[in-house]
């Protein structure tokens, strides 16, 4: 389970900062998931690749939703800075010291077990074989009395503020409570914190269905958006499957943690009345062919490749494209929602650059192939580096 540093939100600015951290956190999971998925391309591990892909797409959705929330409350997401990208291997943004170290690595079951499942682990995962006690989710009571509701919420917020660290679910829960507290406070003064320009909301049915990606314009839509992120990521503490309650039902998918556990266990998750918790990994097989996965050296860095190697050139080109992708996302979330189409184009291109890298020998490590490093490059930096290469 990932533990995040505790935060204290006492103003709309602090709330915006907390949501920006959520944006960074959602993004930070994408490069490691993508890399594992890329390493399965053109192998027979299509089922595993498909499961990881379904998670990656939802992480992209969460990133988009978090940006929508930030825009809704008058903030401006920042994605186009080198500091936006974590340094791999390293902790996730907002994570506590000494918590999980996330690498960029080829697919392996250990990676799934020791990294991906830890990232997605809910506070109380259902132990599908042994069974676990169940906890009711805290439900925010409806109340006609705004002042009373506010007091109630503030108490809940305080309880979270008093915890040393927060899970990702708690982090979002805290943001949700504070959204409500600040909105109630604003409403009592006949204003609102949802001052953002609705034109900045990103909705695009080409890439995400409208029941998953919708404009965030008020408290209800913001709460619904956060619930969706948490539900897709962690599920509830009784049901490993994502709720179908939201309007047009999507596929019946387990939450991320359990999707990764499916991969680890090698079988699909199914309802199972004979199992204590009602579920077991007893469905169709999810085969893994490890010998087909390119042997990528963990945590590649452009600067580790000799400037006179093709890996260096290809790594730079990957990072060019990755940077372009972040820049186009930045534009998308800063008033040009249609640029999402450009970003998706770069997403596909990123895959091709990664596959090219994984087909090249790692110049420093015999027996290994090169890999993507996900480094934000200002072209300025690149010019200096490449000048030395290309002029040598």
């Amino acid at each position, binding site marked *: 389970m990932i533990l995040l540093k505790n935060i204290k939100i006492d103003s709309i600015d602090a709330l915006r900062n907390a949501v920006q951290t959520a944006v960074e956190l959602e993004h930070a999971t994408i490069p490691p998931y993508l890399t594992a998925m890329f390493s399965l*391309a*053109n192998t027979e591990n299509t089922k595993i690749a498909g499961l990881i892909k379904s998670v990656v797409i939802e992480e992209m959705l969460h990133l988009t939703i978090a940006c929508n929330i930030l825009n809704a409350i008058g903030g401006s997401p920042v994605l*186009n800075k080198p500091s936006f990208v974590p340094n791999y291997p390293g902790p996730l943004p907002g994570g506590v010291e000494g918590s999980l170290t996330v690498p960029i690595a080829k697919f392996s079951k250990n990676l799934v077990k020791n990294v991906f499942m830890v990232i997605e682990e809910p506070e109380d995962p259902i132990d599908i074989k042994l069974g676990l006690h169940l906890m009711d989710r805290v439900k925010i009571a409806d109340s006609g009395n705004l002042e009373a509701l506010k007091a109630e919420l503030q108490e809940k917020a305080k309880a979270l503020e008093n915890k040393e660290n927060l899970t990702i679910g708690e982090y979002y829960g805290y943001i949700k409570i504070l959204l409500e507290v600040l909105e109630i406070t604003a409403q009592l003064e006949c204003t609102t914190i949802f001052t953002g320009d609705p034109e900045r909301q990103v909705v695009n049915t*080409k890439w995400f269905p409208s029941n998953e990606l919708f404009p965030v314009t008020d408290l209800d839509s913001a709460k619904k958006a956060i619930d969706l992120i948490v539900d897709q990521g962690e599920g509830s503490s009784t049901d490993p499957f994502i709720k179908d309650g939201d309007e*047009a039902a999507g596929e019946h998918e387990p939450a991320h943690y359990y999707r990764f556990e499916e991969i680890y266990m090698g079988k699909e998750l199914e309802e199972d009345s004979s199992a204590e918790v009602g579920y077991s990994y007893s469905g169709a097989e999810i085969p893994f062919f490890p010998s087909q996965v390119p042997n990528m050296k963990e945590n590649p860095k452009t600067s580790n490749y000799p*400037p*006179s*190697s*093709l890996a*260096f*050139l290809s790594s730079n*080109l990957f990072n*060019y*494209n990755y*940077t*372009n992708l972040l*820049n*186009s996302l*930045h*534009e998308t979330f800063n008033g040009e929602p249609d*640029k999402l*189409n*450009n970003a*998706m*184009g*770069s997403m*596909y*291109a990123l*895959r*091709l650059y990664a*596959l*090219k890298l994984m*087909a090249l020998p790692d110049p420093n490590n015999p027996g290994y192939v090169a890999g993507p490093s996900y480094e934000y490059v*200002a*072209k*300025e*930096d*690149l*010019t200096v580096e*490449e*000048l030395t*290469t*290309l002029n040598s």
Partner: protein
Amino acid sequence: MSYLNSPRLTFSGKFQSDVSTVNNDPNHFNNATFQPSYQDYRDEKNANGWWNPDGTGNFRLIDLTIHSVTYLDGTTTKDPKEDPIIGMSVMDTESRVAGKMVDLDSQQQGVSEIWGLIVRIGQGETTYVKGDYEVAAFTNLWFSRSTDKKGSAGATASYQSIIKNLEWNIEKSNSRYLKELKNTSQDALSIQFTVDRYNSDRMSPEFTIGRMVGTIGPAFKEEPIHHINGRQLFPQVSTVNYAMAIVDDTLKKVVMNFSNSLQFGIAPEKPLDIIDAEGKAEKIAKAGVGIVETANLVLAINTGTPSNPDYNYIGKVNYNTPGWYELESGICSFDLTDEQYEQVQSNPLVILDYSASQTNVFGLNESTTVIFQEQPNYVVADTYVYRMNPSDKAEVKFYATQFGKPLANVSVTTRFDTVTLLQAPDNPPLGVPTSALKFSAAITTNEKGIATMALEAGDPGNPRDFIDGQVYAITYNLEGDFFANCNQSNFISVLVFDSVDPKIIANPTWADLQPVMQLFSNLYPIMSKGIFKLAQREVVEEHAKILKFVFGKDVSDPNYMPVTRDLSKDKQQMILTYLTKVLEEKEQNEVNA
């Protein structure tokens, strides 16, 4: 006005062209005989998929540094302290996929175009001006450019186009150059670059990278986009290639583009100007790649006749000063005296190999060989590459000049010349039927020297069997002249696609789509291996939404599919109809469920 006018800048550096090469062999278009090995790299025995079967088509600008600017008043600087734009970069997109380099056709690979490129001038995160590069094809392809290289590495070619839809952001810049450029040419910029020394060795760290030098300057509506209305210098010996120049009437200068004109090779070792105590050269300069110094090139006006010349010398072409090519991008500028300015209006420019020795106190023994000779009367089709569908119409604009000034009321004659120019043995037949492309055999220029020719496409009726459509080449020249005397790059290439039965377009089945998708899957393996296996029905249907999006994009969009831009409008429509149907069925199934 063009890139040769002021205010202009020069830049140089590298480019990447990651073209896919499986489609370089026309016979690879035959699905029936296609072998999986055609997607492998060439080896010692087999051509396979040539040198880059995994190519993406990406075209990128890399490490292009601005080295010099020339202001409106003709003064010039290479000093960043004088103008901060010096040392800054010419870059491509920062927020979408790379532009694409694409052949017109497997049987016309001599006019590769650049699509979807964005050009930016700036530094790092800062963009001062950016815009869209108008699709352009290369010209003046010259295979014997670099004598130390073979094949495409030894070749060079030039691109000229405009950058349009400009976004300026120069308020924070204190560059005099940028201010002058914006004031002179706010809507569009003229850009020319020459590419050479391309690396197609996949084991090399510079694989798919080549050298680029270029120039950016003002552009105006009345000028051609892909050529200059200027002075055309034709090579007279086999070791040089076409050059072009303008006479700048404001500044009274000749400004010449020599970027695609001279040979590069390994310069021999030579002593440096350091002499040791014994009088021997202390150091020997290493052999290195440089311009082949063969001649003492001098620009002159010939006021006599070709057989009885009378030269008025303008100045030396200083191509052999260190760094000339990269710093000046092959652009040379010469001041004209009033007399020369007068003479140059009606007399041809020449570039001579000039030597002089003193025979005695009274006599100078001059020796001259003509290396370049101006073609006084000239005509060129501005856009010379066309993709057309049956019943499409297009207009070809010809610009005729005499000594660089518009040549009014002259006739331009045209004709098919496909087989001579493009037909290779053992390849499908080109240029037939001629009935599938109509145009006038002669058109006349207006007072601006412009003649417009209508092109009208019919339906070729699938003469190449496994390759869609047909390729045609149209040559042209001024009446009374011959194409043989013209620049052999100056002909028009047209690809006319076949039609598809409207009944099939309206209601296509997978059997109708499969051969088209199989072709892309065969010829563009990076896509079929890396993203979508397009030849498989279930893959196409699973990804119907995204495929409909990219197949339906505008052809100028860098995300357009197919990257190769060789899909007919009818087949595109057929694919889109099919995908729409799939999506409708999916939706219906969801509703039913």
